[in-house]
């Protein structure tokens, strides 16, 4: 049975088509969810894609968290539904309080677009269940505010509960503990700065993103 993935479209999102193309290249079915919707609809998983929701004005994700769909996403997540925020989507999830911490401007104060090496740090999230702990992945990053920050107590909790999902091998943005992605306690809500959807075809330079989105698609249909 095909996994249906809802991809939320905020005004200013721009990776929504890419997320759908990647999901469909892995055998899933992708559909857009307009940010003004009150329900996520009949989907098995939700992706908050990259881009600049509401222009990133004020602060990335700060306005998007008030979009009506975010109440529905929070409800879906509370019911155990898999939710993955990629890049701007990760920023939205932290602003919405679905994940702890915040994404600051990169060390160096420049936008960075390049391909980096990641290490899978935890396999108990919906995005990494099919990967091996310690597995190295080459995945593009593309952000200005990707410098993950949290207080020490939060970091201790994240580490103790095995919620650091991905780490940079060579920290490109100053992130605390080289964190590239984290999950909530249950592992069904994941936020990451790298773009796995950009690494699903060898023609584009890497298909290491397939193991991540493939994990998401392997969650049982709801």
């Amino acid at each position, binding site marked *: 049975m095909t996994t249906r993935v809802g991809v939320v479209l905020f005004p200013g999102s*721009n990776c929504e088509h*890419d997320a759908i193309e990647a999901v469909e290249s892995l055998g899933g079915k992708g559909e857009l969810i307009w940010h003004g919707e009150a329900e996520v609809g009949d989907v098995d998983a939700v992706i908050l894609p990259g881009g600049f929701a509401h*222009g990133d004005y004020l602060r990335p994700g700060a306005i998007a968290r008030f979009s009506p769909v975010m109440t529905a996403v929070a409800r879906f997540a509370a019911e155990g539904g898999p939710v993955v925020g990629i890049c701007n989507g990760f920023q939205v999830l932290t602003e919405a309080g679905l994940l702890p911490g915040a994404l600051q401007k990169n060390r160096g104060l420049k*936008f960075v*677009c390049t391909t980096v090496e990641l290490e899978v740090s935890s396999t108990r999230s919906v995005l990494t269940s099919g990967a091996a702990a310690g597995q190295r992945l080459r995945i593009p990053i593309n952000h200005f505010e990707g410098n993950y920050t949290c207080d020490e107590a939060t970091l201790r909790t994240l580490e103790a509960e095995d919620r650091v999902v991905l780490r940079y091998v060579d920290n490109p943005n100053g992130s605390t503990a080289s964190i590239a992605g984290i999950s909530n306690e249950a592992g069904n809500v994941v936020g990451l700065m790298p773009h796995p959807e950009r690494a699903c075809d060898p023609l584009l330079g890497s298909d290491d993103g397939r193991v991540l989105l493939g994990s998401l698609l392997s969650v049982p249909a709801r």
Partner: protein
Amino acid sequence: MDQPVHRALGLTDDEAASIDRILGRHPNYLELAMYSVMWSEHCSYKSSRLHLRRLPTEAPWVLVGPGEGAGVIDAGDGIAVALRIESHNHPSAVEPYQGAATGVGGIIRDLFSMGARPVAVMDPLRFGPLDDPRSRWILEGVVSGISGYGNSVGVPNVGGELVFDACYTGNPLVNVLCLGVMPKDRLVLARATGVGNLAVLLGSSTGRDGIGGVSVLASAGFGDAEAEAAKRPSVQVGDPFEEKRLIEACLQLLDEGLAVGVQDLGGAGLTCATSETASRGGMGMDVYVSEVARREPGMEPFEVMTSESQERMLAIVEPGNLDRVLEVARQWEVRASVVGTVTAGGSLRILERPDGEVLADIPAASLHEDAPLYDRPQAEPARPTPADAAADDPANLPAPGDCGPDLLALLADPAWAYRQYDHQLFLNTVEAPGADAAVLRLGGPGLPRTGRGLALSTDGNHRWCAIDPKLGTAMVVAESALNVACAGAKPAALVNCLNFGNPEHPEVMWQLSQSIDGMGEACRSLGIPVIGGNVSLYNESHGRDIDPTPIVGVLGLIDHLERRPPSPILIDDGRLLLLGETESVLGGSRWAVDINGRRGGTLPALDLETHGRLLDLVRLLANDGVAAGLHDVSEGGLAVTLTEMALRSGVGFRVAGIANHAELFSESPSRAVVCAEPDAAQAIFRQAQAAGVPAAFLGGTGGDRLVVDGLVDLSLADAERAWRDTIPDALAAGTAN
């Protein structure tokens, strides 16, 4: 006493007299303001139009040629590709961040107004030297502006150029190329047809920013810094989020067939958009100033009509579709209001409000078709005395014993700039910036994958064109075509951005005319139609014209893009082959100009027939997968070409048989370096012979040293350091406005 009003607006006395003749009376202030922006150099091409007619513009696959928002070709499989290039030189000189940002915004609108989704931009950039603090300020601001706007609006930036030269101090060149894709049947042209149809203004409110941008900024040179600062209010301010919503709203309008025609508001704002759509459709238009949403109270009608506020589009809509148009706009949170009505008869009337006072009444077509056309005087620059010529000729320089230090001084990685740009959005980017050409999968949101691809390259060379604008421009076209051939593509279309000095200088007009002739000759010989262009004149500061800098963008089609084409890399234990012959001439080379400050001498020869054979061979090699690495030989000659291949792969080389520094640094055209396994290299050698392309073995690859016997012996690590650190180290010295 004050000067006459028309002169203050940038119109000459003769031009003012023409307006009197057209109207049969004196124009009022609003009318004069409208003529002044539309007859500016920027909008009317009055100095260049006559010459541009000499370019070849036709081919069976060309759907739209020059003169529209963008050129469009048929890429097959029901997909059309739109391409355009523009300059935003003057605004970027005055306010680098916003100047560059709005350059990106403006060209994107040109594409989606035709129904194309913009899927790639490229930025050929030129600045004053890195040791000049103000040039560094401009560089930082321009790159941040492109990054800030382009990333947010969601169009990947897939390549460009970064060039530094003293001739651009005070007048940087900020060109931007944009490529869009669309289903062929979504193509629309900016035409207002159907009496009673409505003109709907979409997007931002109209403010006082950018008033007279085309006449104040784009059509005059630069003097002192204080005067430049005073021009800052003529630079527009960009809002990429507004533009992103505008893209989605407009493409949806066109998908649903709700607009008869769409035009963006760029230079000359509402005046240009209303008069152009009306005159192209053979109609007139009534425009209601009161219905234009403003940012501030108290704006005069001429300000509303000439404002260049960004992120605005004009859609021509049948009355029955208006409700749906407004609904689509509302969904995307885009402001929309009816600001005019299409009329019969050809008059553009500006009314205070519907049925209100008529503020201006002029023939719409006169703003375009009656624009002045100048055949400005040309004069070949005076030849230097034999003694001066000899002193400026790099042929007379002593040979450096060790060429290593000169090679290191020519290395600068542009990654500092392109890492700040999203270059991967839409999952099209097969080859990112840094290679010969950007390689993209053909496709984009809403279009099927076809297994085919596009290659795109932008190129310019002011050093060549300063010595000989005709041959230099032909060489630039040849190089750009070779770049896309190295990606396995067949060149299918060219756009140009002609950056020149003050056209009132006869030497500059001569350069422009010669350059167009060189471009035409190369395009005809190589079978590449020119589908669009832009002319940027008055690139001068403190009375000095820039070197002639025609920039070309060449688009190539790749029939089968199943695997990545060879990159400019080396493999361990490979063999190196040079395709083409080196003419050991240094005139116009980076070694002559950048290292030794010698701008004279003669250029190497270009044989377009030989070049055509090389293009065919290189394209085959790129497609059949036998070459491991492939790179055209251009700026910096063989020395820099081989070093770039080494740096990209971390593999060294040892080359023998290069006679001297002139052979090493010569930029003679029609050459490429191939790296392949030994057996494959033999096969390629025979293939080249059969194709009538000269080929020679240069040496082998491997290890961690860069060796050219008798001339260069460097460690890869030293080259890497020079390559990586040149630009960041220079910028670490700080900037000054």
